[in-house]
Each structure stands twice: as structure tokens, then as C-alpha cells.
């Protein structure tokens, strides 16, 4: 019961901070920055589910983030080009014709479905191949990271069709709303913040459901679960697919907020960066991953503004500290304090 109350209070505080305080207190520039961090937080909630609850150390969420982002970016480029128009960069570098596989993303409906469905389907295929073969632990981590590397390399090579290293950028509108208009930029922030709250609500329901208990059981004793008559692969696949869908949605929101998606935002380095906030915030808690992701990204921006070369060391040191001494992140400190208070 107390846990329920805690979650409800968490949601109330989160909604207040994101939907009321932040828009009231932050400049347009800072609010848009926070919007970007909120996208990272959405990825983080998924990582919390897959890694914190499911034990799948996924070092490749950049792939799903990127799939969602590129689907959205393709749609925005096509929309900017007008009906049956050709995106600007294709005229410069490409044949001047829109490739067939771009065409479906002219439709806003296909785009919105694709943002969720494409990462989910890729995760489903991967999960089925990997978890049924009982690949797990460090092997899974390395495999997922290799995938992120391969994905980025693939994108870099496609200069004429998806912008190569430059990626896709220069979007002018988002579903008909001009992106230079500050009012629309604020609206984007509200959309991202509300999405984060919805994603957290989904995670909450999963954690308190029987599925959540089962997922923890698989994390702790996969073989034992098999001997209860379940196929643990299916349970892991579900968590992995949900995490991928969350990353895809985050990528799709990232594109209009930040204005660019390029291979540098989806490869190995960003994939690992996604993880750091989750580890620091507490990977198996409900709010920890999201809070950790926002705090780490915020600290990175502020600190690297004043001490550019210092941040990377600080981040590395913090990550090592947390992994070595606080397996459930800084939220362990809070629960330790609670325990000592209860004991006295």
C-alpha cells in the first residue's frame, strides 16, 4: 500500500515539475534542452525495464532510438518537400528521386505507427534469435553493442538516401506546425513530458503486474523459471520489445526538438551514455532511470559548458563508483536511510 502511495506521489511530483514548474521557470532555450533530456529519460525507462527488471544489459538502445528518429525525420523531410516533392539533400547528393522505401513515410499515420512498430519488430526478431538461443549476460551486452556499431556504420554509408554522416536536419515543420515558432517548440516540450509520464505509467503497471514479478524471477533465476513451465525467452522478448518501442518513441520526439538526427546520436557512444543515467538513478526502481538520465544529461551540459574536458572524467568516475558500490544506483542511499530510520 505504501509503495502505491509512493508511486502516486512520484507521478504527482513529476507532473508538477515537468508540466508546471519547468515551463514557468525556464527560458525557451533551456526548456527545449530539457525536452531533449526528457527524450533520453524515455529511453532510460525502457532500459530500466530491460536491464533493471529483466537483467538484459542492453548496450544497443541507440538502434531503436535511431529507427524511431529516422522514421520521424524522413517524414518531416518529405512533408517539408511538399506533396510528391523531393527532400533538399537528395537533390544535392542523390539521384534527385525519392527511393521507394521512403514513400510510405509521406503518410503521417504510417509514420506514427512506424515509430513504434519498426523498433518493436526489429527487437522481436532480434530477441527471438538471441534469447531462444540462450545468449545472455556479457555475451548479450557485447552483441547489442556490436549491433549499434553496425547500425551507425550502415547509416554513415548511405549518403544519398539518408544523409550519411550529416544525418537528416533542417526541418521546418512538425505535422503542420512551424518549428521556428516558440509556441510550437513549447508544445513539443509538453508532448515529450506527457509521453514520459505515460511511459512511466506503463512501466509502473508492468512492474506491479504478475508479468513484473515473473520478469524479476527470470532475471534472478532463469533456469528455475523454465522448471515452472514457462519459456523465459518469451518473457524477456516482451520486456525487450517494450523497451525498444519506448526508445523508438523517444527518438521520434528527439528529432523535432533537437532539429537533427545523425549517426553520431545512435551509435555505440550514445548507447552507452543512455545507460549511465539509468545506473546512477537506480536501474530497478520506477523513477530512478528517468531521473538519473535527466540529471546526468543536465550535469553534462552545465559542467561541460564551464569545464569542457573535465566532464568525461567526472562521468566515468561516477559511473564506476555507482557500479562498484551502489548496484541499485543513488536511490540505494535513500532506501538505506529509510532502513536506518525504521531500525532506530
Amino acid at each position, binding site marked *: 500500500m505504501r509503495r502505491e502511495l509512493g508511486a502516486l506521489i512520484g507521478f504527482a511530483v513529476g507532473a508538477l515539475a515537468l508540466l508546471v514548474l519547468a515551463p514557468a521557470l525556464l527560458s525557451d532555450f533551456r526548456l527545449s534542452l530539457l525536452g531533449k533530456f526528457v527524450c533520453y529519460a524515455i529511453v532510460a525507462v525502457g532500459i530500466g525495464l530491460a536491464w533493471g527488471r529483466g537483467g538484459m544489459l542492453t548496450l544497443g538502445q541507440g538502434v531503436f532510438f535511431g529507427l524511431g528518429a529516422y522514421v520521424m525525420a524522413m517524414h518531416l523531410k518529405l512533408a517539408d518537400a511538399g506533396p510528391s516533392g523531393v527532400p533538399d539533400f537528395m537533390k544535392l547528393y542523390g539521384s534527385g528521386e525519392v527511393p521507394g522505401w521512403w514513400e510510405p513515410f509521406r503518410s503521417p499515420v504510417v509514420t506514427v505507427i512506424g515509430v513504434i512498430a519498426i523498433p518493436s519488430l526489429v527487437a522481436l526478431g532480434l530477441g527471438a534469435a538471441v534469447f531462444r538461443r540462450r545468449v545472455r549476460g556479457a555475451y548479450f551486452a557485447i552483441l547489442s553493442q556490436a549491433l549499434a556499431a553496425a547500425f551507425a556504420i550502415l547509416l554513415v554509408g548511405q549518403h544519398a538516401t539518408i544523409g550519411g554522416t550529416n544525418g537528416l536536419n533542417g526541418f521546418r515543420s512538425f505535422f503542420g506546425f512551424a518549428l521556428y515558432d516558440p509556441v510550437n517548440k513549447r508544445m513539443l516540450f509538453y508532448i515529450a513530458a506527457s509521453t514520459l509520464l505515460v511511459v512511466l505509467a506503463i512501466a509502473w503497471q508492468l512492474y506491479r503486474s504478475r508479468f513484473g*514479478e515473473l520478469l*524479476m524471477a527470470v532475471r534472478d*533465476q532463469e533456469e528455475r*523459471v*523454465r*522448471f515452472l*513451465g514457462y*519459456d523465459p525467452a518469451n518473457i524477456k522478448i516482451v520486456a525487450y520489445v517494450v523497451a525498444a518501442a519506448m526508445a523508438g518513441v523517444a527518438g521520434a520526439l528527439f528529432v523535432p526538438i533537437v532539429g537533427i538526427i545523425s549517426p553520431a546520436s545512435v551509435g555505440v557512444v550514445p548507447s552507452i551514455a543512455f545507460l549511465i543515467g539509468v545506473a546512477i538513478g537506480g536501474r530497478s526502481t520506477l523513477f530512478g532511470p528517468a531521473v538519473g538520465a535527466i540529471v546526468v544529461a543536465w550535469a553534462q551540459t552545465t559542467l561541460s559548458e564551464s569545464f569542457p574536458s573535465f566532464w568525461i572524467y567526472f562521468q566515468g568516475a561516477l559511473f564506476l563508483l555507482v557500479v562498484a558500490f551502489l548496484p541499485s544506483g543513488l536511490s540505494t542511499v535513500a532506501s538505506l536511510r529509510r532502513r536506518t530510520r525504521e531500525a532506530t
Partner: protein
Amino acid sequence: MNADYLELSDVRVTFDGFVAVDGVTMTVPRGDLRFLIGPNGAGKTTLVDAITGLAPATGSALFGRTELLGRKVHRIVRLGIGRTFQTATVFENLTVLQNLDIAAGAGRGPLTLLRRRSSVPAEVEEALETVGLVDVRDKPAGVLPHGQKQWLEIGMLIVQNARVLLLDEPVAGMSAQERADTGELLRRIGAERTVVVVEHDMDFMRCFADSVTVLHAGKVLSEGTVAQVQADPRVQEVYLGTAAEVGA
């Protein structure tokens, strides 16, 4: 129709040329509390592994008319074959109740899984009573003493509707009182199930076994009632070091 029995014929398990189980044939009828004994390395655990799909085996293991060998682990479980392991393996971070609830749920559909447990299923309540863990139902399984963990495991087999229970050294490391309680528990639940207990403890076996199979070097050495097996000179020879104990 009484098809609830386990029938092994010529079960063989080979590890890189080493024959761990060497053509075991045995039948365990329902309601029989069968003890499987034998010196260390005799192949007892490997035989249980073979029946439950963990070790690749040849021959045949029938449950009723259904062949078990060659099926996947979780499919065999769903057919009604349950087992425990030498070291108790419960979900330490989940409560006793959650452990049992998960064990009861292999047949649940996706919609049930995505909802919260609103009430305790009747079979879980019943199992809590049977294995005597009502008082600790909300404790994390990790903090239970060893004996209670083993009972929790047996409770999990009951709620998962296991018709055949294969228990690998369930009383190892238990106190005398816990052993006696476990024996009584096995008697109670064994009446309408098929139970095979792998055991080292001769006293425990003498007190509770209906019948005994002795395994040695992967082969069945002797089979019968406790008295018959104890009188068997071959058994005494295998247990030479402990012959006095067997014969006592």
C-alpha cells in the same frame, strides 16, 4: 483409468563417451513414495535431469502414454513433471506468496499476466497450508531458513499441478525435526501423486520409503521394499563403508 505413472526403459545418458546413466529401466506407480539411492556419482541427479529434459538421453521415459524424452524443459513441466534441485532454488527477492503465485501461473494468458494479482488463488492458499508456510507468506523467500526453502519448493510443485515429483536430496542439511516434518509432508502429498526422492540419508529412507531403487555406476543394482533392498548382498557390497548402517 490410472495412467499416472512413470515408466523408464533403457534410459541412457552419455557425456563425451562417459556413460553416466547406463540403461535404467524402472516403473513408479501413482501413490508410491519411491526412494532412489546410490553412492555419490551413481547417476541419480543425471537420471532426473534426463527425465526433465536437462540432459540429452536415449531410451524412453513415459508418463502415462506420453514420451518425455526429446521435449523441451518447459513443455515437460507442463505435462505434469516437476522437480527440485539439490540446492534449493527459490526466487530470493520475491515473497513466499509471489513464489507460489508464479509457480501456479504457467498456464495464464497475457491479459492475466499484465494485471496485478487481486486475490490469492485458492490453490496457492491451499499449498501454503500444506507446506506450513502460512505465517511467512509475505516474507522474501531469501530470508527463509534452509528447511522452509525446500518446503516452499515442494509447495511450488504442488501449485504447478505436478503429477510426478522428482526431489533431489530434499532433506540434505536439514535438522532431525525438519526431516521428520518433510517426511510427513511427502507422505501426505504422495498419496495421489508419483513421488521419487533422491536421497543419501538411510534413516530417512527407512522411515518413509514405500519402495527403493538402488543405482550404482549408472545401472539399477537392486529394487524392492526397504527390507528387500537392505538384505541384498550386492547393495551391502556397494555400501561397504556404510554396510553396518545399511544392515542396522
